[in-house]
C-alpha cells in the first residue's frame, strides 16, 4: 500500500525466483508422497545435510556449489535409496504411524549429528557472484536466485522425461497407481520405492547447492524450509508434481510480500496460516485428486 510499484514488482519477482527453489524442495516431498504415500518428516533434515555437504565441498575442496550439484545429487540418491531400503521400509511394517515416527527419528538423528559435527554456528560460503544482481526493467534480481530458477525448471523437465520416457519412470507410475498390480506384473516394489525416495533426496541435494550461495546454513535450517515445503505440497495437492512447482512459486511470492508488509519476524506467519487453512478447508490441495 505504502510501497511504490517498482518495489512491489521487485518483491514479486524475487519471490518467484526463491519460490522456484522452494518448489524443488517440495518436488522431492510430493514425489515420495505420490508413490509411497508417506509424509517424510526427515525431508528438512536431509536438506540440511545436503547443504552442509555442499558447504564442505566448497570450503574443504574448493568446489563451486553449482559444479557440486550433480555429484551431490548422485551421492544423495544413493543415500536416499539406502535409507528407504534399509531403515524406513523394514520399520514401517505397512503402518502409517510407524513411518511418521521413523522419519521423525531420522530427522532427529540427522539434525543433531549436524549439530554435533558443525555446532550451532550459522555458516555461509563466499562466492564471487553471491551479491551480483541482474537488471530486469526497474527491478534488480539476485543472480544466484536466477540460476536457481533456471536450474529448477531444468530439473522439472528432466523429471518429466524420466517419468514419461524411461522404463523406470513407467514402473514408478505403475507402483504409484496400483501397487499390487505392479507387483503382479513383476515390478520389484521395494526397489521402486527406494528409487523414488532416492530421486526425492537427489532433488534436495540440487536444491541445497542452489540455495547455498544466497542462504546461510545451520543445523536447524532445514526445519524452516520443510515447513514451507509441506505448505507447498499441501497447497499444490499431495503427490502432484505440477502442484509442487506452481505451489512453490505462489508461496515464494506470499513470503516475499508478507515479509515486505509485516517485517521479517512475522513474514513466515502468512505461510503457516495458508498451511493451516488449506489443511482444514481442502486437504487434497488445489491440484490434488479428491481422496
Amino acid at each position, binding site marked *: 500500500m505504502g510501497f511504490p510499484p517498482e518495489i512491489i514488482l521487485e518483491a514479486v519477482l524475487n519471490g518467484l525466483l526463491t519460490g522456484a527453489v522452494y518448489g524443488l524442495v517440495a518436488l522431492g516431498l510430493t514425489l515420495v508422497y505420490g508413490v509411497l504415500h508417506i509424509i517424510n518428516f526427515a525431508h528438512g533434515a536431509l536438506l540440511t545435510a545436503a547443504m552442509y555437504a555442499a558447504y564442505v565441498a566448497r570450503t574443504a575442496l574448493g568446489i563451486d556449489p553449482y559444479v557440486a550439484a550433480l555429484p551431490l545429487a548422485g551421492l544423495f540418491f544413493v543415500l536416499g535409496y539406502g535409507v528407504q531400503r534399509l531403515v524406513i521400509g523394514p*520399520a514401517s511394517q505397512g503402518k502409517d504411524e510407524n513411518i511418521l*515416527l521413523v522419519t521423525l527419528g531420522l530427522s532427529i538423528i540427522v539434525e*543433531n549429528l*549436524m549439530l554435533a559435527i558443525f555446532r550451532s554456528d550459522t555458516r555461509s560460503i563466499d562466492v564471487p557472484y553471491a551479491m551480483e544482481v541482474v537488471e530486469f526493467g526497474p527491478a534488480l534480481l539476485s543472480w544466484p536466485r536466477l540460476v536457481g530458477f533456471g536450474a529448477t525448471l531444468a530439473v522439472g523437465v528432466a523429471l518429466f522425461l524420466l517419468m514419461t520416457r524411461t522404463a523406470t519412470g513407467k514402473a514408478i507410475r505403475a507402483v504409484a497407481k496400483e501397487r499390487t498390480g505392479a507387483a503382479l506384473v513383476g515390478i520389484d516394489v521395494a526397489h521402486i520405492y527406494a528409487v523414488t525416495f532416492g530421486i526425492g533426496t537427489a532433488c534436495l541435494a540440487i536444491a541445497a547447492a542452489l540455495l547455498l550461495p544466497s542462504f546461510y546454513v545451520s*543445523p536447524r535450517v532445514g526445519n524452516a524450509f520443510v515447513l514451507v515445503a509441506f505448505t507447498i505440497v499441501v497447497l499444490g495437492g499431495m503427490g502432484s508434481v505440477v502442484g509442487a512447482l506452481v505451489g512453490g512459486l505462489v508461496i515464494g511470492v506470499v513470503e516475499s510480500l508478507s515479509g515486505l508488509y509485516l517485517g521479517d519476524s512475522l513474514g513466515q506467519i502468512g505461510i503457516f496460516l495458508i498451511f493451516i487453512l488449506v489443511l*482444514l478447508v481442502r486437504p487434497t490441495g488445489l491440484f490434488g485428486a479428491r481422496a
Partner: protein
Amino acid sequence: MTARDLLPILAFAAVVALAPLLVSSNVVLNFLVFTMIIALAAQGWNLLGGYGGQYSFGHAAFFGTGAYLTAILQVRYGMNAYPAFAAGIGLAALVGLAIGFLAFRSGLRGSYFALVTLAFAEVFRVLANASEVTGGAAGILIRLRADPANFQFAERGTFLWVALALVTLALVATLMLERSRLGAQLVAVRENEAAAQALGVDVLSVKLRTIALSAGMTGAAGGLYAQYFLYLDANIAYGTWISVEALLAPIVGGAGTVFGPVLGAVILHGLAEATKSIAGSIPGIDLVVFGIVLILVVRYPPRDLPGLLRRRRRP
C-alpha cells in the same frame, strides 16, 4: 477402580518421594525434577496419542500456553502463582479444544493431523517471539521469591515432591480414564473409527473431550516448567523439542498404557545422561540417541521382544 489398582502408582510415588531424603546432589534432583516435568507433558500426549491414536506433533502449543500464561499473569498482572498456574492449565485445555475442533471437524487424521498440530505450534512460536506481552525474543523472567506461597521452593527436593504429586495425580487420572466409558469409546475410535461410529459413539465429542484433557495435562507441565526455571522464551515454551519429548516418552515406554510415559521419560533421560557422561559435552549427541531409540522401538516393538528372542533360540 479398587485400592489394588492404585497400588503400583502409590508404590512408584513412594520410591521417587524417598529420593530427596537419600541424596542431596543437585544434579540428581535436577534430573528427577526435569524428568517429572517431561513425564507429565508426555502423560498428556499419551491420552490423545496413546489411547486415542491421534498422533500430535505439536504438543508444544499446549505446553507453551500453560507456561506463558502462568508466567505472564504473575509478571504482568501481579497475580499469585497458584491461580496463574490453574489459569494456564485452563487456557491450554481451551487451546486444545479449539485446535481439536478445527482439525477433527475437518476430518484430519494420521499424518494430516500431525502436520496441522505442528503448524499450530509453529504459529504460536512465531507469535510469541514477536509479541510484547511474552517479552518477545528476550523472553520473560519470573522474579525469584522462594516461598511456598509463590509456588517457589528453596529446596529442589520440595519441588520434586510437588512435581511428583502432579505426576501421581496424572497417573490416577489416566487410570480413571482407562476404566471410564470415555476411555472405552476412545480406544474403540482408535481401533476402528467407522465401526465405533456405527455403534453410536459420538466420535467428535470423544476426541474433543480427550484433546482438552490432554492439552490441560501438558499445559500443567508447562506451568511447572515456568515455576521451576523461572524463565521462558518462545523457543523453549513453543519449541519443537517439547513436542518431540512429549511424543517420544510414551512411544518408548508404551503408548496407551498408564505407566508408559513415565517409564519412557526415565529411560530416555537416563540414556541421555549416560550418553553425556560418555561422549562429553558434544551438543546434540543425546538427541541422536533419542532418534536411534525411537527407530529401534518402532522397528522392534518391545511387546514383540519375548517372541523375537524365542524365535532366535530356535535354529
